[in-house]
């Protein structure tokens, strides 16, 4: 039997074949994924026709008139924000009942329990790195859960339609800070939302933080949770929001070589304590400067050596003056 390829040439072409297969596999998966998203986006238009805008219209079968109504603010979904969000590839009915298919929507659907993060993400290998189980545990110990029980859920902070994870991205820290702080301010700077859960008057954040030196600078460069949540080594973003009395108030918690910022805001960026150039917490210096946390090891060492030399020089000079003084 004649072979078209020798054994050697077959051996040589094997890696190429594997590479082509893998490339094909990846390309088809990506295509299938984007195709699926396009398919779902098309499907979602049935909902977004009304929920994607501030008003909706329907035919009244009795009066035979077209009725225009304003859409309830909380049920308006911005198409772009949804599409760019972490859940942007889903169909509305992946999470909401398929019975929403009919209009008017059946009233009983309002009573349906909403999913929490853990319902989909819990126990799933694909999401293991996010450690949702631990996040859930932390949240359950947080002041949000202990003070408000069932009323407070994941969606209060992480809007399922718009939320986009930021902490693992390579965006500028200040952008991450602004995005994350907006989540807190969504309620803490809006009395109507704040009072959905309590009858208390929403404290004025600027006044409450008057003690903080360079307040504006702090608000721009660190997240609320840096001081208001207990840092956790095993998850990326702390969810154990602490009561007011336990918030970090000692400046040196951040402004020292053991800065907690390295365990919180800069956790994803770096794992080293001292950078190659000798700066403690050097990664922070790419985007900001934290007095006490960013001091340079070598500069400290040189200054101590110089100080010792100056002190020794003075001591020797003074001793000689005393020894050689006129009798």
């Amino acid at each position, binding site marked *: 039997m004649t072979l078209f390829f020798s054994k050697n040439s077959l051996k040589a072409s094997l890696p190429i074949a594997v590479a082509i297969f893998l490339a094909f596999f990846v390309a088809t998966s990506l295509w299938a994924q984007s195709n699926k998203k396009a398919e779902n986006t098309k499907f979602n238009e049935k909902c977004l026709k009304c929920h994607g805008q501030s008003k909706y219209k329907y035919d009244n079968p009795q009066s035979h008139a077209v009725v225009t109504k304003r859409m309830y603010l909380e049920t308006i979904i911005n198409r772009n924000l949804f599409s760019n969000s972490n859940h942007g590839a889903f169909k509305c009915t992946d999470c909401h009942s398929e019975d929403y298919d009919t209009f008017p929507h059946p009233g009983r659907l309002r009573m349906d329990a909403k999913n929490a993060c853990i319902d989909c993400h819990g126990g799933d290998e694909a999401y293991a790195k996010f450690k949702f189980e631990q996040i859930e545990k932390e949240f359950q110990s947080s002041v949000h859960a202990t003070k408000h029980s069932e009323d407070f859920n994941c969606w209060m902070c992480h809007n399922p339609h718009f939320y986009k994870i930021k902490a693992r991205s390579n965006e500028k820290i200040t952008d991450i800070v602004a995005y994350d702080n907006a989540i807190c301010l969504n309620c803490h700077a809006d009395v109507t939302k704040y009072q959905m859960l309590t009858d208390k008057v929403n404290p004025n954040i600027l006044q409450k933080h008057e003690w903080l*030196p360079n307040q504006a*600078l702090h608000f721009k460069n660190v997240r609320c949770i840096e001081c208001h949540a207990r840092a956790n080594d095993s998850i990326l973003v702390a969810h154990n929001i602490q009561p007011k009395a336990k918030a970090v108030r*000692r*400046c*040196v*918690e951040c*402004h*020292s*070589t*053991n800065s907690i910022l390295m365990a919180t805001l800069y956790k994803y960026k770096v794992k080293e304590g001292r950078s190659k150039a000798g700066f403690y917490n050097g990664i922070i*210096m*790419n*985007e*900001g*400067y934290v*007095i*006490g946390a*960013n*001091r*340079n090891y070598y*500069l*400290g060492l040189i*200054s101590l050596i*110089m*100080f010792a030399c*100056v*002190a020794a*020089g*003075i001591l020797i*000079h*003074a001793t*000689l*003056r005393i020894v*050689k003084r*006129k009798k």
Partner: protein
Amino acid sequence: MSGKLYLYPVWLRLWHAVNALLILLLIASGISMQFSNPEHPFIRFDVAVTIHNLSGMILTLNYLVFLVGNFITPNGLYYKATVKGLSQRIMKQFVYYTYGIFKHEKAPFPVTKESKFNPLQQFTYIMAMYVLVPIVLLTGWALLYPELILTKFMGGSGLRVNDFIHVIIGFFLSFFMFVHIYFCTIGATFISNFKSMVTGYHEQHD
């Protein structure tokens, strides 16, 4: 030769006292912040920051007093050095401090009404007051309003370079301060120069 020379007018003594106090506060609070340690705080961080900021602001005003004073009174003349032969004169004074003083030699540049600083003093004072202090004040104000520093240097933030300069110059001024205080003990007596700061009169060596 012995006697008393009136070298330090009231404004200068007041300026000097305020300057000394502020610089000591700045050194103490600066070291406390630079080496901040939660377990062993030297000065509580927020207190150190407040002391440092306020002292720096007042020091700036005091520095303006120094500049204006030196401009409108003859005191400024003491800071005008003749460059020609300066290094030889500095070396001569240096040799006196490291050798001659122990042999009880006469100071090579005795204090007169026309020249109250010896060449080494004159050089270090010019460097401290006209180079290091302005740099430390400017970089200090820049750290007080960090958002104003927009320039980026060497791939890092301007803030980082600015702070590095501020800290290094701060260290040099600290060393200057220690040596300066020690050299004050070299006078007619151990405390005569300290008395001069109060009375205004310089006591001459025998």
